[in-house]
């Protein structure tokens, strides 16, 4: 069974049909790319997959469970985590706390325990610190654990956002233009990071990206969106050599 199965997904904003008849199947463990010109509806698809927008038509199945139109927090609990094109960190909190917020649903203690500092508070907080540092060390961010998230350099903020998403223990990780604004060296580091997190966390990844070097370098399969519709999908090389894709997106 596919990890993510999207059938005939569509959404309208008033008279504008932003995405129409969108189909997507991602197998467990795949690294899948979603590409297309600006305004094609890629981020809209992400927003529907994470419940930020409610789709007008179609169905989304994650691991066989229907998650269509569920609330964002519940979709995250079902196993979908994401990053954003314009980074959305909890800027006024430390790097460590950002990841600990990602761990929120994996470690429990109540408000009362927290306010009155019962023994469970100390033991759970200790476990959370340990787990959060473990995740941060994968990204080499453990030395900056006490830095305010908004004070991190841009590239590291992107990495922290991925770390926070991974802290929720997702089955499927959605990355929205992870290489946006990065120089070639940073992009190369990012490609290594993505390879590393696939290995370390065993997570399936769907990413939106404009950097063709990154896309052709790491994505196994691609779907191309154009004007809200699927233009082509399949193996990366086949899709990138598709004359229609070249005409609509890559340029001749």
């Amino acid at each position: 069974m596919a990890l993510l199965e999207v059938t005939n997904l569509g959404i309208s904003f008033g008279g504008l049909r932003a995405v129409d008849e969108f189909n997507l199947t991602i197998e467990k463990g795949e690294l899948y790319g979603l590409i297309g010109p600006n305004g094609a509806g890629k981020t809209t698809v992400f927003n529907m997959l994470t419940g930020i927008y409610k789709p007008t038509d179609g169905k989304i199945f994650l691991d066989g469970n229907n998650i269509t139109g569920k609330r964002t927090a519940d979709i995250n609990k079902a196993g979908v985590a994401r990053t954003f094109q314009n980074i959305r960190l909890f800027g006024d909190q430390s790097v460590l706390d950002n990841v600990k917020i990602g761990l929120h649903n994996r470690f429990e203690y109540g408000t009362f325990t927290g306010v009155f500092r019962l023994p469970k508070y100390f033991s759970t907080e200790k476990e959370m610190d340990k787990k959060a540092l473990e995740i941060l060390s994968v990204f080499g961010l453990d030395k900056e654990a006490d830095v305010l998230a908004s004070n991190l350099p841009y590239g590291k903020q992107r990495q922290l956002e991925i770390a926070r998403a991974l802290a929720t223990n997702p089955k499927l990780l959605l990355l929205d233009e992870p290489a946006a604004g990065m120089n070639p060296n940073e992009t190369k580091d990012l490609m290594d990071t993505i390879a590393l997190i696939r290995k370390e966390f065993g997570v399936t990844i769907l990413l939106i990206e404009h950097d063709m070097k990154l896309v052709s370098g790491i994505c196994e399969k691609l779907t191309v969106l154009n004007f809200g519709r699927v233009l082509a999908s399949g193996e990366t090389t086949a899709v990138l050599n598709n004359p229609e894709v070249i005409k609509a997106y890559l340029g001749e």
Partner: protein
Amino acid sequence: MKKLDKSTRKLISSIAVIVVLYLVMSGMQATGNLSSLMSGLLVPVCAYSLVAIGLNLCVGYLGELSLGHAGFMCVGAFTSAFFSKMYQDVIPDVPRFILALLIGTFFAALFGFLIAIPVLRLSGDYLAIVTLAFGEIIKNVINVLYVGKDAAGLHLSLKDMMDLGLDLDGVVLINGAQGITGTPRQSTFTIAVVLLIVALIITHNFVNSRTGRAVKAIRDNQIAAETVGLPITKYKLTAFTISAAIAGVGGVLYAHNINSLTATTNNFGYNMSIMILVYVVLGGIGNFSGSVIATVVLTMLPEMLRGLSTYRMLIYSIVLIGLMLFNWAPGILKFREEHGLTTKQIVDKFKKKKEVQ
């Protein structure tokens, strides 16, 4: 000893400062060196500080501007005073005051919770306007509320005292606009300071707990908070309820410090909500000890300026504007940075000096 984090150190030092101030003030009071005006202000200052701490939780950590906290203070004051008056001769002093405290806090929390359900669907200016209206509604309802007690039980009316239809031996407990008179005056300076310290500890623990982190995350970026699986509504309600409860504690203290408790614009209405907000903003949003300092300074200041009679409020408002500029104006901030006058620079300098010694 394990190294404490920055916020815990700050909490401990502010509690130390409060304790020292408490000892100095009680010493002066005992030796008769404190004017009756000042000693009359001790408990109210603590009560306002509590409300400011509660409001700061809402403004600084939930990120929502509430103009109705005087309303929650009002609920805490009236429910606890009502209880104390009703059982004045039935329950001994100490347990009665503890129960009154719990009852006032509980009802303020309950009102906070109930009001939060519709209000937290809004945000920004709309939320401020609606909380303002709720605060006014609470105050105005209490102003027309008549409750009396006689052998047949409790009587309630929203019209006037005669409408209660009390027996001859009946007692009016809440007398409309005249409020509650003859509440036992049990709020001592000691109790007030203890409650203030407890509130500081509770809020500190709350914002540094799992729930507190979630509340701050929701404030920083609601959409991101949702995508990491945080239940937004639940935590917003929790924070707002705790915030209202702390304001309620302030109300209980306030009510048990005066003989006749009435709900006017100045003590529980719009004016008070704005005053508390001024304390919170000038003390630093998200800074609980700052709220306490601002409350103390800004409550004492008008009393100290009393000698200037007519010009009193004029100077007071100039001080407010001056403080605001000193804290926030970009030009002044730049000047302070260049001349080593920001709080951080001063604290650093102070620390270095200590190390040298």
